[in-house]
């Protein structure tokens, strides 16, 4: 069976991808589909959702829905850039460490373990707060620069086991160059692991960025969901009962994170087929009264199909 199709057959993954696709679309079209300019001050100060403002307005009468829509791009771009940069570093470090072995491995894995142990968010805050202009991209790069370790660690372990696989050895016995071994023989086998690491980093990056924006370390003029929450919090949205200002952005973050986790689930299930089977058929099993259990194989005496 085709791996890609397998991936899509999974309901969780599909749900995750649909949500992701929706947000991606918003990120691309944001400024055009937003009903208002998110900075446009109006007379409707802090008004609850209405026909004119579906998600209400903030303390200066700016349209929250527009902020949310326009802010999607900032979130996704940071997630993407951080994800890509962390993945690139992670792949470089992890695969190299796994492949070269010896002192190189020793020092590279010590390095990534260090980065793992050193608390990340404080480090990011530490760095981001010092930068002259901690814009979205800068933050993304900082997150990328500190967030690669987990991926590197997983990749190293995988590479290590792949390196000892016969097919790599066989290619080597055939006289392949080392870089080809890594790029052509080892790397394609790591796709799922890399993808899942990437998705994980994106989740982390989004949460970090939103957090940084929320505590005001990144410029609040760049719209993203954290910025919305920053304004909301600084203007006592919750105390003023302006739930529409506070809740949607948080829900969007959780939804995005959830979508990413779901996609990661799917990747996990590809990597680990043991996770796959039952999930797909839970409903039909329940209908047939079958409870799959380890150790007690269900017995159903039903008419054979």
């Amino acid at each position, binding site marked *: 069976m085709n791996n890609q199709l397998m991936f899509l057959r999974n309901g969780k993954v599909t749900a995750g991808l649909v949500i992701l696709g929706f947000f991606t679309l918003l990120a691309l079209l944001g400024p055009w589909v937003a009903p208002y300019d998110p900075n446009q001050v109006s007379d409707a100060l802090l008004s609850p959702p209405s026909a004119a403002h579906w998600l209400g307005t903030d303390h200066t009468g700016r349209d929250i829905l527009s902020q949310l829509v326009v802010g999607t791009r900032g979130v996704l771009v940071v997630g993407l850039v951080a994800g890509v940069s962390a993945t690139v570093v992670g792949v470089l470090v992890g695969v190299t460490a796994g492949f070269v072995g010896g002192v190189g491995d020793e020092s590279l894995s010590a390095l990534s373990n260090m980065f793992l142990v050193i608390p990340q968010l404080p480090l990011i805050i530490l760095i981001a707060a010092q930068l002259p202009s901690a814009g979205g991209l800068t933050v993304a790069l900082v997150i990328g620069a500190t967030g690669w370790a987990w991926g590197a660690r997983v990749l190293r372990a995988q590479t290590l086991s792949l390196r000892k696989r016969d097919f790599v050895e066989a290619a080597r016995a055939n006289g392949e160059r080392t870089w080809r071994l890594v790029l052509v023989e080892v790397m394609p086998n790591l796709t799922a692991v890399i993808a899942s690491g990437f998705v994980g980093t994106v989740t982390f990056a989004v949460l970090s960025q939103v957090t940084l924006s929320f505590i005001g370390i990144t410029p609040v003029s760049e719209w993203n969901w954290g910025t919305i929450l920053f304004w909301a919090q600084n203007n006592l949205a919750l105390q003023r009962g302006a739930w529409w200002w506070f809740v949607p952005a948080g829900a969007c973050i959780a939804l995005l994170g959830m979508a990413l986790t779901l996609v990661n689930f799917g990747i996990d299930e590809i990597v680990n087929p043991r996770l796959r089977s039952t999930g797909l*058929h839970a409903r039909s099993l329940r209908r047939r009264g079958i409870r799959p259990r380890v150790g007690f194989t269900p017995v159903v005496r039903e008419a054979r199909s």
Partner: protein
Amino acid sequence: MSQTDTSTQAGTPTAAVPAEPVLEIRDLSVDYGFGDDPTHVLREVSLTLHRGEVLGLAGESGCGKSTLAYAATRLLSPPGLITGGEVWLTGRDGKRADLLSLSDAELRAARWRDIAIVFQGAMSSLNPVFRVERQLVDGILAHRPGMRRAEATERAAELLRLVGISADRLRSYPHQLSGGMRQRVMIAMALALEPQVLIMDEPTTALDVVMQRQILEQVMELRERLGFSVVLITHDVSLLVEVADRIAVMYAGEIVETAVARDVYTKPRHPYSAGLLGSFPPLHGPRRELTGIPGSPPDLSKRPPGCPFAPRCAHAMDVCRTELPVLGRTAQAEEGRLVACHLHTSGLVDGVLPGLLAR
């Protein structure tokens, strides 16, 4: 097609077929997959194990040997599903029960006490985080609630000595034991409650020949002493011929032939059994020409109608491709032998049978 001329004489069967069955599998069917399109791996398989007997289950990889063993004990993991059949086990007390219709508690009680199993991956069958002692003891205590811990430990030590491991190994963790030792610990564990039936699923494939022989001989010796029955699963037919009383040959989820071990070796009736025997070189005696079996095993999820072996069979007839042969007596009505092959069961004239199969 080939012809070996190893032997023309059937040796006398090592054991006359004993009358009393301990384990009777009837029409067991197993599916893999919970979806709408499950793979029917076992189709109405029947098999009988008699008291004190060693029954060998042979067949190539993936033909469903393990599935049969696990399904009979209801230990098949998801997505395995038993879709029909009965498994009658005679307990120590002489009561017969269908394992497939027991409640969880009854089944739990019957397990290990009456029927124990040594798994294919016996190397990984020990919990890596517990000492050997604990793993032996908890099995005993689960069935003998009244027993004191010290007694159970004493019993565990005794069991280890039984399989030739010194009792101080009780304090070892599995990873501190060599493969052969782990295997023997598993066997000791399986024998802890002196079960009626011991199922051994390829207990020695991962070991080398020297170790394999040591372990199997130990089991056979114990069988003599303790009098349990054994189902021994392997795809090494030569091994089975040597140690088993009876052999059942499986192919693509079905039993295609059962007979006394010696007979299977000398007078295979099913073309697959014959092919199997023609696939391994003999260690001694004249070098015979080996042919193997052409083609490759079928995909169980896409089974053609008719005899599953038909596509690879040199003797396949038209009927083989359309009609599934059932396990039955041969036309010659040989004692203790059942074959699922149209060549033998559909009452063809002897002369039509190819030489090897007619012997």
